[in-house]
């Protein structure tokens, strides 16, 4: 009986002492919070100047290129077969696979590096990625080779669609969506610096190219465009402005834009893609279909959003292909309508010869 009491009074406290006696003092309880790759990527891009939200579109006219052929590096992004059919004198035909490396080793030798594509949209897309990568003298040539010579202009003139029925347009102001988390992204190689990780990611996007498999979508016509948007609830249609493009209506005083479209303004007006602004009202689980005046502006912003992990798609040729007539007849936004007067008919080179045409 006495032994049992001894056991109760001494052994039990000793066991408790054994279990708890050697615990280290902790200043806080352990926790399992991790920082997120997508936030770190956004942070890095801001650290590097938040380029996309702070610069005007790096667009350059064919006339300036023509007048500076000896000073500018012109890089032709088209397929080699298109290049051989005709290209700007002195232009380098660089495939996507080596574009990042080529720019990196050559861009300091020229005051401007001008990317040229067939319509200007691919060049705008790549100029965005290269600007983000830190190449500050990258530009894209407005309307691409179509503005250089009539020989190349069908890529634009074939896409100028006028839709006679205005039923696809609306004057409703659709609200932006609620804020949602940034898209998940994977940044491999944890031992790499954020700079290296971002450059690797940018290079991968450049190699992917600008095409309808990944980052663009053809509106084909206003009718198919309208059907496409309205029959697919996963599409979030936005316009990257300017506001007058979103609102202009040559036929009435009401605002006028495709049904369901939401305006996201970009420099110089505002910058709705800033972290403190409306960036994260873009739904990360939807396709972000972006339209603009010519498709070049939307391609530029599509690149940035894709880099952040959004499934962004630029609507090819923008309003020119959705309703060219509306664009053409609205005085404020008529400059976005492709016109034959934009075709400069400058000489070009065919094959590998140096003879001009």
């Amino acid at each position, binding site marked *: 009986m006495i*032994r049992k009491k*001894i*056991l109760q009074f*001494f*052994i039990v406290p*000793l066991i408790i*002492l*054994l279990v708890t*006696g*050697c615990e280290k003092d902790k*200043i*806080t*309880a352990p*926790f399992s*919070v*991790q*920082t*997120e790759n*997508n*936030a*770190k990527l*956004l*942070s890095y891009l*801001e*650290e590097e100047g*938040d380029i996309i939200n702070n610069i005007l579109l790096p667009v350059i006219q064919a006339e300036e290129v023509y007048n500076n052929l000896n000073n500018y590096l012109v890089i032709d992004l088209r397929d080699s077969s298109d290049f051989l059919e005709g290209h700007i004198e002195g232009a380098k035909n660089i495939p996507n696979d080596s574009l990042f490396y080529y720019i990196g080793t050559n861009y300091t030798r020229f005051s401007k590096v001008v990317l040229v594509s067939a319509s200007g949209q691919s060049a705008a897309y790549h100029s965005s990625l290269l600007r983000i990568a830190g190449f500050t003298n990258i530009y894209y040539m407005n309307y691409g080779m179509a503005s250089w010579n009539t020989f190349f202009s069908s890529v634009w003139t074939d896409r100028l669609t006028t839709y006679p029925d205005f039923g696809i347009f609306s004057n409703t102001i659709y609200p932006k969506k*609620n*804020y*949602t*988390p*940034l898209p998940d992204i994977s940044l491999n190689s944890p031992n790499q610096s954020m700079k290296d990780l971002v450059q690797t990611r940018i290079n991968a996007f450049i190699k992917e190219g600008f095409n309808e498999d990944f980052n663009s979508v053809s509106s084909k016509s206003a009718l198919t465009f309208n059907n496409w948007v309205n029959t697919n609830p996963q599409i979030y249609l936005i316009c990257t402005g300017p506001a007058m493009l979103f609102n202009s209506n040559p036929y009435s005083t009401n605002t006028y834009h495709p049904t369901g479209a939401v305006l996201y303004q970009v420099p110089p007006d505002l910058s709705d893609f*800033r*972290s*403190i*602004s409306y960036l*994260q009202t873009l739904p990360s689980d939807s396709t972000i279909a972006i339209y603009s005046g010519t498709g070049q502006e939307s391609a530029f912003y599509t690149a940035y959003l894709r880099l952040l992990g959004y499934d962004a798609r630029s609507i090819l040729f923008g309003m020119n292909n959705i309703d060219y007539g509306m664009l053409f007849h609205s005085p404020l936004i008529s400059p976005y309508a492709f016109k034959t007067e934009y075709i400069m008919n400058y000489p070009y080179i065919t094959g590998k010869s140096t003879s001009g045409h």
Partner: protein
Amino acid sequence: MIKYLFIILFVFILVSCEKTQIVESDVPNQNYIVVNGELDAESLFRGVTFNKTLPVGIPYDIKASELKDVTAYIVINGAQVIPLHYLQDGVYMPLYEFLIQAGNTYELFAEWEGNVIYSITKVPFTPEINDVSYNAGGNYLQANIKISAGEVYGAIWVIGSGIAKASTFPNLSIPGTGVTTINVITSGIPDQYMGSNYNGMRNIQVFSYDRQYTAYFNSVKVNVPLGNAFLQNGGTTGWNVLGNNVIGMFIGVGKGTKKNVN
């Protein structure tokens, strides 16, 4: 049998803590990361500071103390990410100004040399005063305010537009369940400000805090003997920033406007 069992247990107790390291220095020298962020409702965000404590004997120098390479960002309401960037003196700011909004939840995520730092706070609403009064017995000011969930309140007296003011609250008013209003009091007003020449100049200002502030407030005001030079007032301070060897506060506050009591 029991005798042997005791002997074995005592021996085990004596040797089981053998791994405890003996600090050779007379003064403990554990460096801490110090985080400080105050989020004022309806005001522009003023940033978060990241510093580290310095070893004893080294004169304080902000250049030695500040952390310049912290990766930090804020998440608003569990979604919107706002990166923070080093500015100067350990201060990290967003690239663009933004307004702190009452009712929103703000999470702080940071990483420095592999250490993850985290905190969360809900920004309270600016206190809404129903009524104010002067308590002659205690010589203090009192306000009756509407309450919002998850908030605690404190008040200070303010003479004129800044002639003098109380440096702290006498206590925090913590609403119980089922109440819609609560009284908040200031500390006693010094006699020198009770003369007639200060009539019309005695004001009360009420502050609202995220309820987490209670642990911090209570821990720093308890006047217990110093046991550890690195812990304020000898007790464990109720910090709300988490991380290994991280101390600090990241807290939402609502600053009411001054209300005249005379």
